[in-house]
């Protein structure tokens, strides 16, 4: 049969950000997918080497712009480990609340855009963006900004949670929990939606480990690995966190993992708000000069919404000598070629949606 090369261009309605996929297609089945990346490459690691420690927060947030809070917190905890600063008791709970809210917002964004990619499910995109907007307004109430918060300080947060924050959060969480239930019934009773996701883009257990994928893609293939429990930072285990694991390995399993994670995050935020101790959660103000690193290097791992993020930082006098960032979307995209072999062309976007990629994360 004639093999044609289709170039799904960098600007395409369903490749989020800038990603060119050169797909060699035999009839309707995909032979090979070759992602071309680098359209958003701006050399974050090189820029970080010429900035003071706390000047780099702005860069770190723009790595994964669907969940800026997570990357910023990952960077700040690396610097804390380097300078040997302890995080305050209440600040840990405040960070858990803000991180989990950001995870729900990021998963809602994923749900909306994936439904939009699969078919004309435009209304699903609108509903989820409406819910995500509620959370963004909550985070704005807590930190003062909609997307790029820059509110993490060494050892704590720059501003404690405002007065009426608890009951606002409870209201928003109740409405999101209610709408999540609606989305679940609405989508899973919809046979056309199920056809587009069931056993499409299957990733077996061994391949998932060999290909090194992370996050919901890994847990969707049956591997029970979640940084929040395995390296138990910020008392997640005390808050009763249980990772969501599915054994299906196809796009539907990844969808179910993320829906469960949203449910898990909602209960985490509620419990964290209840058990939050009194006391002060403020971190050190941003002081550029005079930071004396205690250790030579620091490796910190966190569970970002898209997977496991890791930062390896080597200390210099005032600046990071070298900052290596492990971006989850980078390796998930590398696995796209293996997953989508033999699938149909129309399913390529269901797989791409279920991998939940953010291109700024991939290009660094």
């Amino acid at each position, binding site marked *: 049969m004639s093999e044609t090369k289709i170039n799904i261009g960098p600007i395409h309605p369903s490749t989020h950000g800038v990603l060119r996929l050169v797909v060699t297609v035999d009839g309707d089945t995909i032979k090979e997918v070759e992602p071309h990346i680098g359209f958003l490459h701006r050399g974050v*690691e090189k820029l970080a080497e*010429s900035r003071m420690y706390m000047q780099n927060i702005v860069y770190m947030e723009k790595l994964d712009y669907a969940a800026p809070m997570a990357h910023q917190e990952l960077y700040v905890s690396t610097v804390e480990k380097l300078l040997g600063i302890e995080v305050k008791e209440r600040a840990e709970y405040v960070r858990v609340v803000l991180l989990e809210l950001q995870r729900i917002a990021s998963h809602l964004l994923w749900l909306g855009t994936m439904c939009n990619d699969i078919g004309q499910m435009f209304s699903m995109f609108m509903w989820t963006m409406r819910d995500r907007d509620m959370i963004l307004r909550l985070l704005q109430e807590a930190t003062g900004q909609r997307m790029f918060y820059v509110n993490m300080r060494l050892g704590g947060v720059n501003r404690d949670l405002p007065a009426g924050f608890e009951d606002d959060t409870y209201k928003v969480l109740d409405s999101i929990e209610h709408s999540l239930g609606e989305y679940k019934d609405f989508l899973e009773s919809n046979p056309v939606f199920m056809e587009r996701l069931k056993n499409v883009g299957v990733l077996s257990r061994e391949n998932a480990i*060999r*290909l090194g994928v992370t996050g919901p893609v890994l847990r969707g293939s049956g591997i029970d690995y979640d940084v929040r429990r395995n390296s138990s930072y910020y008392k997640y285990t005390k808050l009763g966190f249980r990772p969501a694991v599915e054994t299906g390995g196809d796009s539907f399993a990844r969808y179910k993992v993320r829906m469960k994670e949203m449910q898990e995050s909602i209960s985490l935020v509620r419990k964290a708000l209840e058990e939050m101790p009194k006391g002060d959660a403020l971190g050190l103000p941003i002081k550029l000069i005079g930071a004396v690193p205690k250790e030579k290097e620091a490796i910190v791992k966190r569970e970002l919404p898209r997977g496991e993020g890791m930062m390896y930082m080597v200390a210099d006098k005032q600046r990071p*000598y070298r900052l290596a960032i492990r971006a989850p979307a980078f*390796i998930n995209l590398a696995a796209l070629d293996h997953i989508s072999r033999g699938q149909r062309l129309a399913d390529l976007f269901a797989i791409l949606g279920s991998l939940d990629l953010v291109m700024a994360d991939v290009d660094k």
Partner: protein
Amino acid sequence: MPKIEYANLDAEIEKLHSEGFTYLTKITAVDYVDHVEVLYFLRDIEKNKEIVVRSDLAPNYLRLKSIMHLYPAADWYERELSEMFGIDFIGRKTKRLLLEKWDGKGNPLRKSFTWGSKYEVQE
């Protein structure tokens, strides 16, 4: 984890792979002007154990054996390192540049790469 000699780096990785460290998290390199240090972050998913394999490379002889046959995940990491650091990996099939049409010459993450930034660290 003490530093491994450059010679028996591959044997060490094979040994670890057979021991169960089948998950590769990241391969990075750090350019200390007189030598370049390469780090392999390996992990055993079931027993939740981590290991960092390090070794030094002479700055003029930046060659490494590719471990794609053991860890297919290493494919993109090695291509990124070859563009950012100029380390070329032996035994790789695809040679295509990972970062699309990046017209800059040289390897950005080496300390020798300067692009006239105002904040440049003057050694």
